[in-house]
């Protein structure tokens, strides 16, 4: 009984941890002032450019990925299922193309490092010196 309780508490903490942990990253060359609202717009298909007008190359994770669920909940205030439905609407009405879906944070780091216009997110512990942290969720 106690053990079960401890596991529940621990897994709750782990979830909390995953939520608090996400950092939004851009290429170090990107000097633009980018707010949380800007990033929300990018991941909900409301804009395809940075505040300075340059084109955004946003990357995301595939829909099964737990970090994506945490990101959707923390920044977009939606379940991933809702975000999927939103993008289905945008795609099939020609209003946008969703961010590229990658399968690991390693790929996200590589992509952001290689593309000056990229934006992505990873767990805070995985950040490398090759990318710039915008903010923590």
């Amino acid at each position, binding site marked *: 009984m106690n053990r079960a309780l401890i596991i529940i508490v621990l897994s709750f903490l782990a979830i909390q941890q995953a939520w608090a942990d996400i950092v939004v990253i851009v290429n170090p060359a990107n000097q633009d002032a980018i707010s949380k*609202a800007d990033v929300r*717009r990018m991941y909900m298909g*409301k*804009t*395809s*450019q940075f505040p300075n*007008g340059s*084109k955004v190359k946003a990357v995301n994770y*595939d*829909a*099964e990925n737990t970090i994506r669920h945490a990101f959707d909940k923390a920044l977009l*205030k*939606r*379940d*991933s*299922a*809702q975000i*999927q*439905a*939103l993008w*289905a*609407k945008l*795609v*099939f*009405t*020609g209003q946008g*193309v969703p961010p590229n879906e990658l399968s690991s944070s390693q790929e996200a780091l590589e992509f952001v490092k290689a593309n000056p216009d990229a934006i992505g997110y990873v767990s805070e512990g995985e950040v490398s010196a090759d990318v710039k942290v915008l903010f923590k969720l």
Partner: protein
Amino acid sequence: MKYISTCLLALFSTASMASDFSFSGFGTISAVKTNNSDVEFIQNNRLPSGASDDWEFDNDTVLGLQGQYKFNDQWSAVVQLLSRRNEKNNFDPQVDWAYIKYNPEPNLSFRLGRFISPVFLASDNRNVGFSNIWVRPPIDIYSQSTINNIDGADVTYRGYFGDFDYSIQAYVGGYTLDFPGGGDIEFHHMAGLVGTLSYDSWTFRLAYMNADHSNHNSDGVVPDPNIFMVVTDDGLGFNVTPDEACLFAENGESCADVITNLQSNIDYVKRSHRPFNLTNAAVVYDDGEYFAQGEFMHRRSASALSDAIGAYLTLGMRLGDFSPYVSYSFGKTLKETRYFELTPEYKAAVDAGVIAAGLDVANDYTVSAFNFTSNKQNTLTAGVRYDFAPNMALKLQVDKFRPLEHDDRDSYGNGLIVNGPLLSSLDRNVYVTTVSFDFIF
């Protein structure tokens, strides 16, 4: 079939050549039944037949395939093929979207080709079940205008100030919608404006379309209507045809001679180049947990197709992967009254004729209500959406359609969606149960 395979082949061969090509699709498989063997439920009025009290799978079932090609940051093209049961009762795929898009800057886009006329909030994505909470948009509104495509051009600008996001879209074009039995409605011109404003959990949308329409029969012509003139206070009267002899008139006088505005009444009723103006207002609230969505629409069609209004309100919430919702909607035509103007001699002759028959003369001689379409119904809906996988959803929805009497025409209340016996006089609701499976890929 040959057509679609050629298209697909073209799409796939392009795909293999370039990474800027993306291919995606969506679909719905639905099972629908009613509680009444005499009634056929149709989800839109272009379906030649509907679901009765056995499960039927061809009401909402649809498959869409989309290819999108990006030439560069400014230019892109989209082709979407849609297969759903059509007015010819087959599933032959149709080109639902096909346009070239030009983005001179990221917030500004121009499109040329075929797209959807965005007359209502969910017009654009009405076929993409996965993107909607319901199994289908509320038909009390969406069947008041079965408009789907437009061949034309549009421009969209989107931007934001502070925490407000907005977009403005303007479009022009035309389209011909085919109906079962060979007739069609031709929209000679369609021109519209759509404005959307969103803030936090709120979205507001206003849309207006100005259009002209003609309703051709299967021979491709708009027939002259048989106009009925009501002359007694209990609704009796007779047909009035311009070049034919008119009841109670002197020998040799045609109806056109004695009814001075007969032609203008015929021109009004006859659906040839008549208006089809739609006004739509929508509000959406969605905070991630609770959502509410409402729409109101008004159709100005000033012809045998009466003006109409409709509205709905949907409320729902999200409980993990389940989203229960309830909805109320109604749709009704607005009563048209058109008057006849008679020469004094003819008016006196008809009055005398009516009195001689022992009847009471009507205060005004009017165009019969039967020269105008009439429908009225409301709907209560309850359902639940289950997001059981990232790209798939299951829905269960029950609708209670209530066809109502309208304009004292109690034997003509059939509602918007039901083929079958005249329902309002039976005072009977129609329950429609739908199970649907929606997916995207």
